[in-house]
């Protein structure tokens, strides 16, 4: 009796498992990154609306914290239990494409559909002429400045060049007290990016035209010397290598920093945490030739090659990239619009902060699409931290880093 009970239970359990493992016809599973507390509710709404419009299709969203997304995808793909669609960082896309995990979407994309996107944001997801992903989130960087501090220091306009920035920082330093001219990030994620802002303005690129590292170019060395001189002359906050992006943003919110470079979401944070702060957003300073660059980031939604319901999955993508649904998502998360129609909405046109970001887009650089990019970024961060710490001559340190990076790029 007891044994037969066990058996029934076991069989019932097994059948449940079997049911769960078999993808139902018309089921679309989507892994999405949790950008904020608003992400989950947004996708729940999408699910309801889409299922109402497409009876017979069952959509399931799995919301995963950003930090563990790559780990989850790695294990899911290894085990063959991945979803039909997933959000990924576009800089990971090359790995997915090279391993044959991502499905090209060109068979589904009509010229009309393609026309919905702003080209700048779609192009990073195109590889070898094939579109492997659609940009679901986009962001860029610009310079925030503290209006009150600049005014007190006698600086009328936000600095437009690095020379002006250095000058303004010196004036802020002269005010005395715990005021720092330029907030310089020197720790954790995007430490390398913070250095690229100066490097791009000196006319150098992450990769030279021949595909080798640009870290040993004259512009790159000049940029490192510029930051080092800011540190040495006390024009940044002290101890830059202990400041991650959030730490510098906190200093800015406390009104202690004159200028810093970061993403649009700082505006949302200031609104909530430091509503009295008088700040503005301006372009990233230019170099002597007028060159400047900002960092563009997109996340893409990709379709997996082993998906069994590609047509239904595509329908969902088509649904997600309608202007209204895009606007709701972008505004909730504090990103930049990726749809042309969306970008024309009043919300974006009349928003001075966002306008500064979108104005910089023609100068936007995206993380280069190369295997091993994360390692090259790590090498760059390490080298630039050594420069900030004064552990050697900037030129020698950068040349050494460039040689290391070239070793990876050659593979």
């Amino acid at each position: 009796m007891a044994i037969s009970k066990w058996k029934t239970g076991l069989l019932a359990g097994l059948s449940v498992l079997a049911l769960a493992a078999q993808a139902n016809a018309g089921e679309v599973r989507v892994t999405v990154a949790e950008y904020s507390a608003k992400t989950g509710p947004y996708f729940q709404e999408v699910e309801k609306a889409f299922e109402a419009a497409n009876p017979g299709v069952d959509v399931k969203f799995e919301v995963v914290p950003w930090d563990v997304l790559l780990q989850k995808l790695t294990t899911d793909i290894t085990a063959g239990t991945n979803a039909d669609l997933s959000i990924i960082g576009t800089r990971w896309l090359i790995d997915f494409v090279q391993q044959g995990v991502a499905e090209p979407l060109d068979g589904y994309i009509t010229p009309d559909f393609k026309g919905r996107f702003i080209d700048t944001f779609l192009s990073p997801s195109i590889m070898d002429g094939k579109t492997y992903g659609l940009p679901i989130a986009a962001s860029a960087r610009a310079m925030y400045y503290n209006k009150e501090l600049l005014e007190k220091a006698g600086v009328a306009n936000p600095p437009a060049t690095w020379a002006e920035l250095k000058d303004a920082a010196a004036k802020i330093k002269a005010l005395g007290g715990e005021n720092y001219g330029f907030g310089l990030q020197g720790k954790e994620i995007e430490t390398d990016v913070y250095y690229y802002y100066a490097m791009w303005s000196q006319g150098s690129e992450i990769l030279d035209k021949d595909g080798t590292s640009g870290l040993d170019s004259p512009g790159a060395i000049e940029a490192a010397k510029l930051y080092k001189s800011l540190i040495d002359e006390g024009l940044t906050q002290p101890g830059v290598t202990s400041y991650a992006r959030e730490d510098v943003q906190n200093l800015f919110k406390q009104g202690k920093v004159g200028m810093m470079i970061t993403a649009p979401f700082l505006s949302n944070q200031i609104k909530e945490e430091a509503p009295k702060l008088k700040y503005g957003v301006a372009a990233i300073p230019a170099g002597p030739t007028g060159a400047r660059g900002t960092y563009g980031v997109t996340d893409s939604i990709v379709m997996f090659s082993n998906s069994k319901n590609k047509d239904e999955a595509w329908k969902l993508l088509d649904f997600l990239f309608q202007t209204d649904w895009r606007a709701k998502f972008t505004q909730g998360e504090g990103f930049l619009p990726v749809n042309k129609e969306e970008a024309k909405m009043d919300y974006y046109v009349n928003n001075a902060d966002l306008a500064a970001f979108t104005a910089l887009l023609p100068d936007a650089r995206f993380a280069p699409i190369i295997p091993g990019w994360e390692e090259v970024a790590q090498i760059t961060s390490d080298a630039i931290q050594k420069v900030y710490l004064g552990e050697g001559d900037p030129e020698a340190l950068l040349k050494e880093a460039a040689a290391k990076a070239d070793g990876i790029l050659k593979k």
Partner: protein
Amino acid sequence: MHNRALPYLLTLPSLILAAVVIFWPVVDLIQIATHDVSRFGQLRDFSGLDNFAALVADPDFIKALLRTGVWTAAVVGGALLVSIPVAVILNTDFYGRSLARVIVMLPWAVSLTMTAIVWRWALNGESGMLNSALRGLGLADHNIQWLASAATAFPMQIMIGILVTVPFTTTIFLGGLSSIPDDLYEAAALEGAGPVQQFRRITFPLLKPFVNIAIVLNTIYVFNSFPIIWVMTQGGPANSTDILVTHLYKLAFRIGKLGEASAVSLVMLAILLVFTAIYIRLAMRGERA
């Protein structure tokens, strides 16, 4: 015959469990470490010891290896030096002893990650509590950037490591002290032995087995301890506070070199096995003598 097989049969279930929980992952690790592995964990060609050779050729790995030695020795040694007097004091009878015991044990109740996050705030150069305390007391006239370079960050991390290791170590020693009969001390006192002599001749020798246990267990914990260093500096700046675990994490999850990361974890396992084996041998020989 039947009787001789019985003990083995009885230990078999736990042996199987141990095999599944311990040996299987190790076998898996060996497989990954000896193959060329894709970013998604798919094994490609057998590569022999290539992954290990890549580690040895990497100066960051060698530095992390040496630093792990310093880290482990300093934290385990420091915790030992602090814990023995603390345990001896807590073992004596005084007013408010239970309260003191609770306070000493408290850091144990807080998760390691949380402790590290709080310290990261406390060591912040501009708004950190430690700097404002030092300046308030007149001990420093300017803010110290604790986490900006390894010269200050690493000693601080070691100090925090000691702080969180003390409760566990003290607990072991308190157990040891309560096993020492009081009449030994009474007899010694009658013979005219002072407190220092009592400690050297009675307490310390009888506590020795517990010290050995504390050393072995703490070495294993501290050697593998990830949160303190990761939360405070992520092994930076420029890898100057990396220990093997943080180095491994970066290799695996930042850069996607699963093969080399597996090799690091095998090296760590080997070091711990060798250390434990040698230490237990030495300690047991000492006890027999």
